[in-house]
C-alpha cells in the first residue's frame, strides 16, 4: 500500500467536519426515541394544537441539539502519545473525559459505517481492547483514508509491543469475507421466529400509548366504540379478529426488527478472531473468539426447516463474572444448512456428531400432562363454577381448543427431548415448536450436578445439570444409572484433559 504515511498523529486531531451531522443525527435519534409517545400523541392531536408553540418547540429542540453537536465536535480530539505509547481520546463539553488506551492492549481495530455515516461519507473507527477494560473507544466520524492509516499505526504498534510476529500483521491487513446473510434469509427468519418477543413488544407499545392517552385525558380513540363494535359480533368472531390483528402485527414487527437488527450480516475471519458485523441504522461489530465459545445453540422450527434457515446462538465465556454481557451472546440469524456447517466447523474444528441417544422416561410426559393440561382445566372448571364467566357450552369449545393445543405441544416437547453423547460432544435437543439443539464440549464443563427426588428412587429416575462458563445444559427424568455413568465419564474427560477451556 502506498498511502500517505506522513500523517502526524502525535498532534491532537479533530474528526472530519461532516461528523457534526453524524453527531447531530445520533442525538436527534436519541431524543426522538425518548419522546416518541409524546410525539405520537401530538401528531394524532395535530388539529387541536397551537401550531406556533408546536413548531417553535420543535425548532428549539433541533437548534439545541445542533449547538451541542457542534460543541461535541469541537471538543473531541484524538492522538497517539508516542512517549507513553498510548492512544488518547479527549472529549466532553462540560464533563471532560480523557480516554487513554495502551497500544499493546489493542486487540482489534474496526472500521465501519452506519446508514448516516454512509450518507455523509465518513467512517467509524472502533478499538477493542484486551481484558476487562470497560472503556470503549471509538471515533464516530473519520475519513476512510485516515482511518486506514490510523488503524495500521495502532495495530503495528500493538504488534511490536507484544510479539515480534510480523507475519501475522500481514494476514491481519485483509480480512476475508466468509459468510454473508442475504436479505431473503432475513425475511424468512423474520416471518418465522421470535413470536413471543414481538408479542411482548407490541403489548408494551400499546400499553404505553394507552397510558399516555389516559394521562392526557383525550378521546382520540373512543374505547366504547371499539368495545361496542367487538361486542356486537359473535364471541368467536371477535376473538378471531383480535387474534388475526395480533398475528399480522407480530409478523410485521418481527420482519422490521429482524431486518433493522441484522441487515447485511457479515462474518469475516482475520488473524485469530472472527468478526461479525451487522445492522441497518447502526452497524454493530462483534468479536468472536472460538476459544471463548462455551455453548452453541441451534434453533429451527418446522417452517424454517422447509425454508432452509436456522439461527445459531453462540455463548462465549463472559469476561465479566458477575453478569453475562450481551456482547458475549451472539446470534447468527438465517443461515442455510451449509452455512451452519461452515460456522460449526469454524467454531469446533469439526462437525458435532450426535453419538449415543438418551431419552427421558415416559413419566416426564405424564407429569407435564398433569401440570400443563389437567391442572389448568380443573382450575378453569372450579373458577367457572363459582363465577360463571362463560356458559358451559362455550367453556367446552374453549377447553377443547386448549386441550388439543396443549396435548400437541406436550407430546412434541416430550418427543423432541433427547440427549446425545459422543466422545467430543454433548448435544441436547428440546422444544415443541422451536427445536433447540444445544452443543457443548465435555472439557468445557465447570461443574456437574445430579438431582433426584425421593419418590424417583424406586423408579430409578433422575436429572443432571452441566455448567459451563457460557450457561447450563440439563437433562431431566432420565435413567439415573445411565446418568451416573455419564457423569463419571464426563468427570474422567474433564479431569484428564489438559486442553484450555478458554
Amino acid at each position, binding site marked *: 500500500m502506498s498511502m500517505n504515511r506522513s500523517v502526524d498523529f502525535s498532534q491532537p486531531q479533530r474528526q472530519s467536519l461532516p461528523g457534526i451531522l453524524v453527531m447531530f443525527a445520533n442525538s436527534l435519534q436519541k431524543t426522538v426515541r425518548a419522546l416518541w409517545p409524546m410525539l405520537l400523541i401530538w401528531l394524532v392531536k395535530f388539529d387541536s394544537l397551537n401550531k406556533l408553540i408546536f413548531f417553535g418547540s420543535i425548532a428549539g429542540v433541533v437548534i439545541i441539539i445542533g449547538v451541542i453537536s457542534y460543541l461535541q465536535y469541537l471538543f473531541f480530539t484524538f492522538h497517539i502519545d508516542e512517549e507513553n505509547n498510548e492512544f488518547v481520546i479527549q472529549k466532553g463539553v462540560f464533563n471532560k473525559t480523557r480516554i487513554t488506551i495502551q497500544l499493546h492492549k489493542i486487540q482489534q481495530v474496526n472500521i465501519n459505517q452506519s446508514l448516516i455515516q454512509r450518507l455523509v461519507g465518513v467512517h467509524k473507527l472502533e478499538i477493542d481492547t484486551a481484558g476487562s477494560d470497560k472503556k470503549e473507544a471509538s471515533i464516530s466520524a473519520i475519513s476512510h483514508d485516515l482511518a486506514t492509516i490510523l488503524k495500521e499505526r495502532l495495530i503495528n504498534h500493538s504488534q511490536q509491543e507484544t510479539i515480534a510476529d510480523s507475519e501475522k500483521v500481514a494476514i491481519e491487513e485483509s480480512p476475508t469475507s466468509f459468510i454473508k446473510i442475504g436479505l431473503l434469509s432475513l425475511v424468512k427468519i423474520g416471518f418465522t421466529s421470535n413470536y413471543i418477543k414481538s408479542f411482548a413488544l407490541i403489548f408494551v407499545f400499546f400499553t404505553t400509548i394507552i397510558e399516555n392517552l389516559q394521562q392526557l385525558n383525550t378521546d382520540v380513540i373512543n374505547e366504547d366504540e371499539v368495545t361496542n363494535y367487538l361486542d356486537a359480533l359473535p364471541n368467536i368472531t371477535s376473538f378471531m379478529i383480535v387474534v388475526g390483528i395480533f398475528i399480522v402485527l407480530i409478523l410485521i414487527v418481527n420482519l422490521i426488527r429482524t431486518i433493522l437488527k441484522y441487515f447485511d450480516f457479515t462474518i469475516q475471519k482475520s488473524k485469530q478472531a472472527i468478526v461479525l458485523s451487522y445492522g441497518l441504522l447502526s452497524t454493530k461489530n462483534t468479536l468472536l473468539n472460538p476459544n471463548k465459545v462455551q455453548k452453541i445453540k441451534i434453533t429451527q422450527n418446522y417452517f424454517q426447516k422447509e425454508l432452509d434457515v436456522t439461527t445459531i446462538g453462540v455463548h462465549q465465556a463472559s469476561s465479566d463474572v458477575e453478569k453475562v454481557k450481551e456482547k458475549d451472546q451472539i446470534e447468527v440469524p438465517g443461515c442455510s444448512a451449509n452455512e451452519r456447517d461452515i460456522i460449526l466447523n469454524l467454531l469446533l474444528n469439526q462437525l458435532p456428531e450426535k453419538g449415543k441417544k438418551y431419552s427421558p422416561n415416559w413419566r416426564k410426559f405424564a407429569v407435564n400432562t398433569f401440570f400443563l393440561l389437567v391442572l389448568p382445566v380443573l382450575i378453569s372448571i372450579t373458577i367457572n363454577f363459582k363465577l360463571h364467566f362463560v356458559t358451559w357450552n362455550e367453556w367446552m369449545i374453549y377447553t377443547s381448543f386448549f386441550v388439543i393445543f396443549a396435548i400437541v405441544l406436550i407430546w412434541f416437547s416430550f418427543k423432541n427431548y433427547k440427549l446425545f453423547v459422543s466422545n467430543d460432544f454433548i448435544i441436547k435437543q428440546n422444544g415443541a415448536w422451536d427445536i433447540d439443539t444445544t452443543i457443548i464440549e465435555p472439557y468445557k464443563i*465447570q461443574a456437574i450436578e445430579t438431582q433426584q427426588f425421593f419418590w424417583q428412587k424406586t423408579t430409578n429416575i433422575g436429572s443432571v445439570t452441566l455448567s459451563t462458563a457460557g450457561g*447450563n445444559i440439563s437433562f431431566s427424568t432420565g435413567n439415573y444409572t445411565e446418568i*451416573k455413568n455419564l457423569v463419571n465419564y464426563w468427570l474422567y474427560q474433564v479431569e484428564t484433559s489438559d486442553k484450555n477451556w478458554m
Partner: protein
Amino acid sequence: MNEFTNNPIDINQLPKFEEVQLKGLNPKYITVLLFNFSLLLILVIGGFSTLFYFKEEAFSNTIWMAIVVGIVLFLAGLVVFTKFSFQKKGYAFREHDAIYKSGLISETTTIIPFNRVQHVALHQGFISRKLGLASIELFTAGGSSSDLEIPGLLLADAQLIKNLVSQKINPPKQDEPIEIASTETPLTDEHE
C-alpha cells in the same frame, strides 16, 4: 517420557462418584440449622402472642388451641426435618474433584473438578464462629449456580481443605515438571 498407550476406555471401569464414602458434617452444625429456623419461628410465635395479648377475642378458644397445637407440631416437624436433612448432607474430596451431597426431598450431588476451580473461600457466620465451625466455598467460572459450598466443618478442617484445594488449583511452578514432583507428596496427604 512415559511409554505412549491409547487403550479404549471401559466406562464401567471408571471411578464411580456415587460409590464414594461421604463424610458427614460436624454434629454442631444442627444447632446452626435450628437457629436459622428458630428465628422464623420466634417471629411467628411473637406475632400470635401479641395478638393474643391485645386482642384475645380475635379467635375463639378452640382456634387458639389449634394454633398452639399447630405451632408445637410445626416445631417438632422442623426438628425432625432438620435432623434428617443433616444426615443427608455429606462431602468428599477425591484426587481430582470435590463432591457435596444434600437434600431430603430432592437429593442433589454437586461435583467440581479441581482443574476448574477459580478460587476458594472460607466463610464463618455469627453462630458458626461461636461453635468453631466454618464453611468452604469453591468458585468456578460457571456462574453462581455451579458454586459449591460445604458448611458445618470444623474451622481447622476447613482451613486444611482450603489449603489443599488452593494447592491443587495453583500447583507451584507449572513450567518446571521436576518441581511438581517434589511438592506433590503433601498434596495427596489425607487430612482428618
